[in-house]
């Protein structure tokens, strides 16, 4: 006996599907139409179809490729760093944390604070007069770098992102590490494997699916970064911190280049579909 028959099942799904179609499906369709139209704030309701000029303009825009490059580098570098540090913390700290779960709370706190808020907080932390970091650097070394100028802004943002989101990777690895059955470890040590060897040859392979997933989640989140970058630099430092999300936002609000912004959105959408497809393919293979 099926507990929920087909008709009932559909009825239960309908509100959610309808809601998503309205709030995402309609905008997606609008995006597609606008991306091949000539449109301004005055002609929002009467865009005139004009072919693929917006796409051509976007693909020829050096700032667009600058933003793509920023997002790619930012996504890959932060994801790699977060996964490596998170993995180290999970493996190294497990003996400490296993019996004292309350220690997890301060490690998870950064995940509870809004990225935009973290961005604002770093404005204070790094401020040349009010911030403690430049203050102590001057005090101890007589000099402090300009953390948010063209040269350093990218690195500064990397550190900000990594410090906030390493706990996320850590948490996933901690759970995956704890889920490895005790017998596996006992068998390895009975066979004379050192802790390091067991980690490399047995435990890490078992955690591999989690590693892949954590990397992709952090890569995607880093790639589409907006909040903390916008709050901290407002894409400033000579445009050196314009992520793809910020590029789209600025093309729309500051430049009024709606067609371009929308075309860039469609490009970004297709790119993220490609990434998702890749992820599903990889994890699908991992499960088999």
């Amino acid at each position: 006996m099926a507990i929920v028959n087909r008709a009932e099942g559909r009825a239960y799904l309908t509100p959610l599907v309808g809601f998503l179609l309205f709030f995402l499906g309609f905008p997606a369709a609008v995006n597609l139409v606008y991306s091949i139209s000539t449109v301004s704030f005055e002609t929002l309701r009467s865009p005139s179809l004009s072919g693929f000029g917006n796409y051509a303009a976007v693909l020829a825009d050096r700032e667009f490729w600058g933003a793509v490059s920023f997002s790619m580098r930012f996504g890959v570098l932060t994801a790699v760093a977060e996964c490596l540090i998170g993995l180290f913390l999970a493996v190294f700290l497990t003996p400490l944390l296993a019996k004292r779960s309350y220690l997890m709370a301060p490690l998870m706190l950064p995940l509870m604070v809004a990225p935009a808020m973290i961005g604002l907080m770093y404005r204070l932390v790094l401020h040349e007069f009010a911030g403690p970091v430049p203050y102590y650097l001057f005090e101890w070394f007589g000099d402090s770098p300009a953390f948010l100028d063209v040269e350093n802004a990218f690195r500064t943002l990397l550190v900000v992102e990594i410090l906030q989101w390493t706990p996320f990777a850590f948490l996933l690895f901690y759970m995956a590490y704890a889920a490895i059955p005790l017998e596996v470890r006992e068998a390895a040590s009975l066979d004379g494997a050192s802790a390091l060897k067991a980690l490399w040859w047995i435990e890490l392979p078992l955690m591999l699916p989690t590693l892949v997933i954590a990397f992709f989640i952090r890569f995607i989140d880093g790639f589409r970064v907006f909040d903390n970058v916008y709050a901290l630099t407002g894409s400033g430092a000579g445009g050196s911190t314009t992520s793809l999300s910020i590029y789209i936002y600025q093309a729309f609000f500051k430049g009024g280049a709606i067609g371009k912004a929308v075309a860039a959105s469609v490009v970004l959408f297709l790119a993220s579909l490609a990434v998702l497809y890749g992820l599903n393919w990889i994890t699908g293979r991992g499960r088999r």
Partner: protein
Amino acid sequence: MLNLMRWLVFSIAVLAMNFPVIVTMITSFKSARELSFNPGFWIGEPTLENYTRVLGETDRFNIYGYLFNSTVASLIGTGVAIALAFPAAYAIARSEAGKRTLLPLIINLRAVPLIIFAIPLYMMYQWLGLLDTQLGLGLILTIVNTPLALVILVNAISDVPSELDEAAKMDGASSWQVMLMIIRPVVRPALVTTFIFGFITAWNEFLFGLMLTTSRAVPMTVGASFFFAASGGGVQWGTASAVMVLGALPPALLGLLMYRQISASLTGAVKG
């Protein structure tokens, strides 16, 4: 020795990761005078004046408005998400409907950069009169919350043995009644987790608040940034810090109260 190293690594990690929060808290207890000559970690004369100003001078600081807007929008964004996701999760867990296409599709939504929907949503909201309203912001936060809500609830309902449903159906209950009267109480912990997690996510959202609100419905994350665009005399770091602490406090407190459940559901969500 090794244990000492572990404590050391743990302490460094906690300090480094929470560094901006710690600095902001310290700064919020400094007077404007002290701040100008002492940006360091030690406070000579701790004071509450920044908090009394921010919370007292309501004609200058709209902090209650921001907090209220964030609360209302987050409640809508979480409540609607659960109301939509719970029946859907029940159908997915107890029938074949939606399992193959809908569930993966919605899970993948989490990974789509939401900025790509933001521009048409802005136009749509203009037509619908939802720009700069708490309802409008709340409905968008629903979308942000739906993927995780669905995953958590599908996992939770799948863990409930279906014999429970069958027994109730034998007694003549409809599947709707089973869902509301049998399943809902059993998965209450998951519902609470979903709610808290969704509330934190919604509270911390920034992009849609920035794009879809201008004055009446501005949420805390966006409102806090106004204190940095201060005209004239530069940023008032003391009051700005107090604002940031107040804005970060609700989600942080909720998160710390619930960190066990949240970590469990985070990992559950990844497995799903």
